[in-house]
């Protein structure tokens, strides 16, 4: 029998007292693609880095066996590692913007690998670099090679990074979250590229939190949780007929069209939905441009009570600008936004402040959204004071709010840093609810969260809406999420609304080509 490319036997990795990888075992056969799936803190990235000897300072590594192509990696010295890294194992980190040296042309980064592992020099090397860039689908490679990371789009950066990883033609390529932070369409392309890398004698190890991504790529999947592999097997089997509860939970948590109207997290079902009420926000032909660059153009929508309107689009499509205009935080160049029939433009400061209570917001970055010095109690008290709640009753109201968002009174004394991302987003929602607003603008409310947490928050938003009849303006790049959470959706591209309508229609029968492209690109949970 052919011996596997990688053999990991009872691997344990600990930093100080904390053991983050607790005895995992797996193999990767030649030409096979294994996916390590798990949420943050599951130890998947550490495992990947351990395979290239970059676990990090102060890490204690123990393994029954840790072999690459029959070679015992645990025995390697620094010098030996250097031959393996880049030479025989290529490594693709997540988020190419920070994984490429921002001060050096991408070409140099690739040339570096060639310089270290091949005899190529001068012109030959430059040629090879261009060749590699071309091979990963980078247009005008010579030009690109001379550019700095920030001059390239996210997709191109990721491709460049991959080019560097495969430059020395390694037998194993490890990709750690290769597609996070990429727009859905680009994500699809990169996934295809990775799929191509896999060949008869080159194996692939993909690390991801996104089962959908994995479904598209991996032959086998290993699901990690808290440093152990809870389940592993052929992709089809694991995704199709999961055995372990955690895997099931993960699968259930992924929002997509089929999850519409179902619970993503294992929480009690909510009260019945209310029918959409009167119009609370009406945006008419709003447009805004920054220094000549058009950010938003002729965007109109209406939002009714107890209704959720989604705005999808890739980065730079003008989603956030639209949100800020709706919130009255920045004034449109053209058009107007009315909340409860009052246009922001027409109001004086005092009136604006009063109106603001009716339209609140929840941010993407859960940490930056809070004054670092404030405790949850203070945060809520402040919000309540705006709502005119008398001082004495603020505390009890705060507790109510916390319970409404699924937190308990003991969180009152915590500071933002002392809360998890999910908890912070819950507090953010509580704060937004404090003035009993008619609308909450949610700007990428879940994109910074792990899938299971995301599930909880999405459910929470749903529940809150059913409780209070608040309307959501829901901004996200994740079509799955939008599909799950929204009643109607606006698809934006380059500051324009290209398509609009009930979420079902738009996603089932997309009219606009771009929408089709988007929908096509959505990774689906059916193994290839």
């Amino acid at each position: 029998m052919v011996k596997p490319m990688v053999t990991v036997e009872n691997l344990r990795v600990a930093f100080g007292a904390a053991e983050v990888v607790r005895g995992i075992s797996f193999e990767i056969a030649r030409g096979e693609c294994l996916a390590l799936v798990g949420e943050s803190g599951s130890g998947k990235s550490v495992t990947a880095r351990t395979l290239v000897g970059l676990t990090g300072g102060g890490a204690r590594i123990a393994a029954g066996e840790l072999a690459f192509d029959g070679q015992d990696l645990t025995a390697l010295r620094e010098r030996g590692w250097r031959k393996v890294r880049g030479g025989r194992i290529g490594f693709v980190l997540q988020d190419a913007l920070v994984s490429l040296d921002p001060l050096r042309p991408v070409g140099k980064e690739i040339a570096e690998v060639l310089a270290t592992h091949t005899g190529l020099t001068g012109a030959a090397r430059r040629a090879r670099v261009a060749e590699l860039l071309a091979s990963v689908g980078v247009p005008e490679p010579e030009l690109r090679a001379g550019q700095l990371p920030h001059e390239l789009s996210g997709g191109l950066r990721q491709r460049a990074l991959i080019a560097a990883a495969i430059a020395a033609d390694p037998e194993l390529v490890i990709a750690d979250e290769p597609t996070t932070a990429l727009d859905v369409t680009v994500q699809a392309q990169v996934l295809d590229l990775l799929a191509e890398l896999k060949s008869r004698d080159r194996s692939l190890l993909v690390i991801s939190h996104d089962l959908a991504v994995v479904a598209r790529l991996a032959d086998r999947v290993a699901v990690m949780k808290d440093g152990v592999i809870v389940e592993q097997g052929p992709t089809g089997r694991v995704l199709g007929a999961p055995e372990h509860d955690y895997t099931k939970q993960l699968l259930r948590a992924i929002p997509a069209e089929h999850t519409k109207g179902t619970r993503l997290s294992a929480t009690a079902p909510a009260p019945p939905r209310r029918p959409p009420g009167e119009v609370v926000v009406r945006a008419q032909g709003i447009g805004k441009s920054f220094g000549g660059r058009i950010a938003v153009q002729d965007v109109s929508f209406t939002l009714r009570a107890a209704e959720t309107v989604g705005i999808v689009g890739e980065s730079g499509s003008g989603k956030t600008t639209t949100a800020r205009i709706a919130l009255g935080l920045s004034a449109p160049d053209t058009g107007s936004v009315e909340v409860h029939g009052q246009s922001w433009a027409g109001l004086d400061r005092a009136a604006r402040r009063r109106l603001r209570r009716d339209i609140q917001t929840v941010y993407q970055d859960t940490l930056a959204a809070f004054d670092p010095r404030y405790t949850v109690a203070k945060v809520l008290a402040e919000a309540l004071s705006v709502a005119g709640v008398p001082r004495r009753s603020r505390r009890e109201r705060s507790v109510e709010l916390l319970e409404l968002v699924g937190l308990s009174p003991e969180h009152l004394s915590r500071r933002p840093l002392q809360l998890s991302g999910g908890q912070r987003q819950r507090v953010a929602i509580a704060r937004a609810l404090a003035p009993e607003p008619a609308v909450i603008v949610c700007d990428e409310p879940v994109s910074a969260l792990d899938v299971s947490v995301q599930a909880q928050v999405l459910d929470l938003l749903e529940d809150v809406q059913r409780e209070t009849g608040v309307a959501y303006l829901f901004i996200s790049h994740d079509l799955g999420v939008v599909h799950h959470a929204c009643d109607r959706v606006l698809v934006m591209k380059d500051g324009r609304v290209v398509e609009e309508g009930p979420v079902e229609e738009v996603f089932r029968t997309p009219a606009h080509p771009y929408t089709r492209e988007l929908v096509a690109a959505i990774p689906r949970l059916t193994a290839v």
Partner: protein
Amino acid sequence: MKRPGPGLWLAVAVLAVLVLAAVAPHLLSAQDPLAVDSAQTLRPPSAAHPLGTDENGRDVLARIVYGTRTSLLLGFGAIAIALVFGGLLGLAAGLGNRVVENVIMRLSDIGLAFPELLLALVVITVAGGGTANAVLAIGVANIPGYARLVRAQTLAVRRSSYVEAAHALGLPGRRVILRHVLPNAVKPVLVLATIGVGTALVAGSALSFLGLGTPPPEPEWGSMLSTARNFISRAWWYGVFPGAAITLTVISVTVVGRALRLRSEGRTSW
């Protein structure tokens, strides 16, 4: 996340002793720092004079202990001045309109164009030597720097999304500034200031070296040091101990300051 190491505790201990020396020197030295004894000049450390005597037969230990108050004043006083005025200017620039901001920033440009010591020298030409003036000099010299720092902080905080959140909440602008902008803008500056105290202390001793510091016979580390240099070949102790006092103090202040910084940046777990 790292926990405070022994170094930090040591520094805190040193500062504690210094504070004690500043408020109640008599507890640390029984001798009179002004007691001249022409017969006992430049005597090496002994039972009677643990750190020896100076060129006037005064007890070096006593002078170091009693000098603490003045020396610390040089550091803390100066930074206090710089903080208050620099802080106000910086806030004005950070919160005010373009005109205010420009005026203040151009002024601080000019201020920054003078090297600290040069500015201090100019101030002293006007005001004359002496402790109070030295403090004033160094303080003034530091104002532009702090003004810039505070302004930068203020602007950063103003742009932060929690301030936007407060606005979105419908909080009155004034309250947003008082409750969120001010505290968050000033806090990190306060922390940096602790480190600044050390630098100011050194600057102070430099003035003393030029003979512009505390007039005799009042003890002050810097002036002790600068006098001692004439006798360095005969009386090492006279120079070494005040020097050590300054260095140790500055180190301690800096260590504590850095620890506070790490903490305020949430990089330590205490």
